[in-house]
């Protein structure tokens, strides 16, 4: 059908926006993801207060099985696993989003620059991006952390730097399509400088793909932080971080039947990553990607 040559009333636009929101709210998987994430964010903020026992205390019997007093059992140092799972959300939910933010901001900037300027700038930066992408994340991260010494800040910076090129590819593709549009030429013909055209004119129009990409990256960031922590480069003891719990206790799996010390923190990580990906899927559907 051809377009109707009338003015769409502003109310209609609002209706369309409400429609989008409703579409998200109606999506069961999206909502499930949001609820799980909300739960862990709540735990990250209030975990120490709502935990039945002190997550750091070693005052309890060691390696107890599941019981009413210790729903998830205790570990080899006599700490309550249930309390530690509740409190363990905090560090990862600070480090992973910050790393993602850094990666998305950096990647968006690189993507805008390469997509907007093209030519030599694009060729040089894109080859560097390709080189970074060809190396496994953990290998780069471990190398850098060993070289610079590990701190939480370094973890954030390393993951952010590794993610930036990945994000930049998505952004670059979106920018290349936008750049063809006449409003970019019109803006240049007003004498706008490149940074204005990139950040004020083009950026708002590529926001959809960036939001989706950021959510997907957050899922990977949680994995990466957990992986580095497990290897001893990330969050440091005595934090009740999930990956630290696994690192502390996984050797017990071989020795006998102390599965609860590892299973519950592992389930916590899985639930968070899956939830983030459910949200990413929902956003991708709505932003039409």
């Amino acid at each position, binding site marked *: *059908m*051809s*377009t*109707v*040559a*009338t*003015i*769409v*009333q*502003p109310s209609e*636009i609002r*209706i369309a926006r409400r*429609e989008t929101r409703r579409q998200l709210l109606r999506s069961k998987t999206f909502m499930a993801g949001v609820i799980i994430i909300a739960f862990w964010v709540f735990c990250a903020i209030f975990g120490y207060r709502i935990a039945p026992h002190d997550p750091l205390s070693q005052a309890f019997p060691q390696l107890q099985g599941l019981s009413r007093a210790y729903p998830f059992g205790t570990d080899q140092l006599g700490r309550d696993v249930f309390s530690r799972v509740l409190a363990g959300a905090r560090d990862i939910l600070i480090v992973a989003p910050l790393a993602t933010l850094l990666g998305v901001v950096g990647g968006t900037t690189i993507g805008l620059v390469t997509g907007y300027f093209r030519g030599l700038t694009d060729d040089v930066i894109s080859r560097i991006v390709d080189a970074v992408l060809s190396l496994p994340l953990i290998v780069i991260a471990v190398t850098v952390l060993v070289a610079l010494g590990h701190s939480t800040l370094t973890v954030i910076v390393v993951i952010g730097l590794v993610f930036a090129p990945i994000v930049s590819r998505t952004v670059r593709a979106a920018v290349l399509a936008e750049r063809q*549009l*006449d*409003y970019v*030429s*019109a*803006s*240049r*013909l*007003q*004498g*706008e400088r490149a940074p204005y055209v990139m950040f004020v*004119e083009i950026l*708002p*129009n590529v926001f959809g793909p960036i939001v989706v990409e950021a959510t997907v990256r957050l899922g990977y960031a949680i994995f990466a932080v957990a992986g580095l922590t497990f290897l001893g480069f990330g969050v440091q003891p005595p934090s009740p971080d999930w990956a630290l719990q696994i690192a502390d206790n996984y050797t017990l799996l071989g020795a006998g039947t102390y599965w609860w010390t590892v299973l519950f923190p592992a389930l916590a990580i899985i639930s968070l990553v899956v939830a983030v990906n459910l949200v990413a899927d929902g956003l991708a559907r709505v932003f039409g990607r």
Partner: protein
Amino acid sequence: MTDRGAAPTLELKDLEVVYRVRGRDRQVVRGVSFTIAAGETYGLVGESGCGKSTTALAVVGYLASNGRIRGGSICVAGRDVVGLSNRALRHLRTNDVSMVYQNPAEALNPSIRIGEQVAEVFRVRGAGREEALERTLQALAKVQIADPGSVMARYPHQLSGGMQQRVVIAMALANDPGLLILDEPTTSLDATVEAEVLDLIQHLQAEFRTSVLFITHNLGVIAKMCERVGVLYAGRLVEEGPVSEVLKGPRHPYTVGLLRCVPRGGARKDRGRLDTIPGFLPSIDEELRACVFAPRCGLAQDICRATEPPLYQITEDHSSRCYFHERAQDLPRTTPPELGQPILVDRSKAPLLAVKELTKTFEQNGRRIHALEAVSAALWPGETLGLVGESGSGKTTFARAVLGLFAPTGGTVELDAHVLPPTLSRRTQADVRELQIVFQNPDSALNRRHAVRSILRRSLKKLAGISGAPAEERLLMLAGSVRLAERYLTVRPNQLSGGLKQRVAIARAFAGEPRLVVCDEPTSALDVSVQAAILNLLVDLQVQRWVAYLFISHDLGVVRYISDRIAVLYLGRLMEMGPAEVVFDGPHHPYTEALLSAVPTIDGGGRARIKLAGEIPSAAAPPTGCVFHTRCHRRIGAICDEKEPPLVEVGPGHLMRCHIPIEELRRLQAQPQEAAQVAGTKQPAA
């Protein structure tokens, strides 16, 4: 041609179509009735949103999933097709009805070779593999594809738009349908290619005796192709009759208005404004109980707003849905015809813009594309230079190089006698302010994330250096000067209609005091009534501000209306340039002559068609000698193939690049055209 005795091929009775949008039925087609006799060509005309395409889709049962036929009947060859099962509908589409859409590139599957794609139509109807391929070959030959064997082996993207549309037509005619529906089949094609395709359709229709439902917004095409025409407005058939009667003696104010909007018959800006149709098409959820056109009609009386007029029978087959059909042609003008002051361009002074030997070569996959070859032109304040030529002729490249959007390979652009740096980033803000542009597609020209107010305020800041409180005042003045109501300033562009968006784009270009504005097909995405309003606005602004326009358009009527001088480009070379009347009235360059003859006019008759052989050659390997010699109908011999003719002055301010002397051209073009011959009879192979 028409056989009125037999049962009509298509008969619509009180057809009502609704689309369900957000839980409510919105009526798009409101009780449309017409019949198409066997072998007849029926035109359906009206602006976008009037329900033309919806009507056609209803006939073949291809309505969108939220569309539904609420009432009335559709009979194809005497059989009601409303409510047919999917199976029966498929049978109908296989055997009785075919449809050709506007964009052939989207109608063909990009990953299947042409031969297999067309053969499939025969296979569906039961032919064996060998037979289907054999018949494909014949079908492609029927649509005048010169080398069907090689075309069958190619993929759609390897064919030009005109060739693709021929293939689509071949597929549509493969089942020898009783009814062929053509929905804007030539709108996306160049004028010369359009003329070829229209000729082909006429020829095939005579041969197959197919009935045709021809949907278009172009009244000239209707005049050329159709026997009868129906005028649709807001889903209502408001006038119907034989084409000559409706176009020469319209009896409905909407038809009268439409005809007045089109610049034609040599209309020029200095002889007055174009008339327009005020207001907007009613939105689809409005309840229309009275005359659908009354809110926009200059003749409307109380009765028009109270009850719907019946269909008045004016002659046996001419009818109009208007109480005042006898006075329709007295419809008062909505815009005063007089311009405020006459436009007198003084060319004895130094020109505003002087372009010298502008050349642009693009590198593409190791090939050099010669987009522009040493084009020189000058523009004086207050005048319009029209740029015409087929796609690929270098019009847009020329304009963008002047603006500095990319650097030319050679040549200079001078503004007020100082040479401008080649690219925007090197030009001073003062230079940047002088040159502005209005793009073809306002959707892409306005940032959809910014409100109209912020778009215009930024332009005022950059182009006029005004910000803060004074900017608000200037903003309102600016909006007023392009007749943009204040309430539209707060919305985003996607909430505006095409015409309003184009006004915003014009306002942006005029935010400073530009001396030269490039208009790159500024009206071709708009309906004719909106086009007329935008052209009037551009002319008013020119008269008030003494701005010069570089006006690109493929619509020669529009170019003639607005231009003082015209430049004709072919393969990046200037073929002819001169005062508008001289270029249009001739003697013209053979290429200009062919371009002019290709345009179907509402008034009909006029020039005989000159068929240009083949398609525009590749700019990567332009022909030797005169670049036009491969398609020229007046080629005089070896000199054309070997030696490029110089651009010489053949009259006052009239330049031409042709080996034939002007007097000879004058004599040749005065002769009747029937002998005009196609130079190379073969389509180029690639």
